[in-house]
């Protein structure tokens, strides 16, 4: 008996629809978020992540509705991120039915927000979303903001260490270079972040072939997030789990007697 690795489909939501692009641009419509969440739940997703990429406040309200509807029908953990700027934003999302909240840009602007959220709701609700890319910082990895559009000159590893000290409960590491390319997770980035953190690590960005999922686990990831390979039917969640089970990684099977 052991803790299973988690397979997490990620739904980028804007104006009530799921979209997906490559390197955060060229977005195409991928479906209805509530229907997709239900389907992924049935197929054995271990968690779901919604990233609200709406630009408008009306879009954000629509996303709150999506969260409410999903939480009523899907009984697995739900993480919501995108545009979270305050303790009150976190409260509103939790009350709508989110179990965990991910933050990125606002924490970089004001790191103390991490401690404030952790103090009020506990570290376990707080996921640090790190959108990192290769750059000339000390470790070779730089944190970006605004969905990868803006660099910060902040070293990704130094940022992860600081955020862990402030109280994040989990790290969602998204490779901006690999995002949407299906060319494989950024293995050396996962390895580097694993070495400086002692909270669960979710690998994101680049999932393509089944071997990619195993490689990220070998590099130290506890959970694997993917979007386009699931949305566009390249793999079913069951295919990834069967592959991993065959190679002796602990996965949760959803068959009941």
């Amino acid at each position: 008996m052991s803790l299973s690795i988690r397979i997490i489909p990620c739904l980028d939501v804007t104006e009530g629809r799921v979209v997906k692009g490559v390197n955060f641009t060229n977005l195409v419509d991928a479906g209805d978020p509530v229907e997709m969440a239900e389907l992924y739940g049935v197929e054995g997703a271990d968690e779901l992540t919604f990233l609200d990429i709406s630009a408008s406040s009306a879009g954000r309200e629509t996303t709150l509705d999506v969260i409410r509807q999903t939480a009523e029908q899907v009984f697995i953990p739900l993480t919501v991120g995108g545009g979270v700027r305050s303790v009150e934003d976190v409260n509103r999302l939790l009350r709508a039915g989110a179990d965990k909240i991910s933050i990125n840009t606002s924490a970089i602007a004001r790191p103390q927000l991490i401690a404030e959220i952790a103090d009020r709701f506990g570290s376990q609700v707080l996921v640090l979303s790190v959108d990192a890319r290769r750059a000339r910082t000390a470790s070779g990895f730089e944190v970006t903001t605004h969905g990868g559009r803006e660099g910060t000159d902040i070293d990704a590893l130094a940022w992860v260490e600081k955020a862990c000290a402030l109280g994040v409960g989990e790290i969602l590491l998204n490779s901006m270079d690999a995002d949407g390319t299906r060319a494989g997770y950024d293995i050396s980035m996962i390895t580097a972040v694993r070495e400086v953190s002692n909270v669960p690590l979710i690998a994101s960005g680049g999932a393509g072939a089944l071997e990619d999922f195993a490689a990220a686990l070998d590099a130290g990831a506890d959970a694997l997030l993917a979007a386009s390979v699931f949305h566009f039917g390249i793999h079913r969640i069951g295919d990834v789990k069967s592959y991993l089970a065959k190679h002796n990684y602990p996965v949760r099977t959803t068959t009941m007697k």
Partner: protein
Amino acid sequence: MIAILDYGSGNLRSAERAFATAGHDVVVTSDANVAFEADGLVVPGVGAFAACMKGLQTINGKEIIRKRISSERSVLGICIGMQILFSYGDEHSDGAPHDGVGIWDAIVTKITAPILPHMGWNTVEAAQGSTLMKGIEDQAFYFVHSFAAKEPVGVHQTWTTYGEKFLSAVEDGYVSATQFHPEKSGVAGLALIKNWSNSL
């Protein structure tokens, strides 16, 4: 009717919906009378031990829970809602263990493991004769916590190992508790909720 105790703790919406799937009316309440009169009382919990005890205090929750148990009315604690049923919690920022409700005389301490929180789906060693775990002994459940009780209390103990062995469920007459989140544990969790509500 099942009452879910609202004492300022996180996401109660999915708990409400999950317990409703078992066919009962469900109410989320911080009203002492409603909480006492319900057929079953669920004590959820998200956050830190001390913050939860503080929230519980503001609605007189400790007395509600004690009174229900002494009146032979069922209580189910979930996650921190399980932990606060113990005598003490060692999760603190001010150096001293915090008093719990004190149903079980043991302390809740940090798990020894390289990566915390213990987050995700894990299996259990289900207690023989368990009502909660009936038919789902081989299933995985969703955990998210860094602290746990490690001494056997109550009548039936279900255990899980992550770094070390800890209590993942306790059944003790009218009071039961799970360290994992049945309301977040998919089909297996809904089956556990049904097992509990059928026993009311």
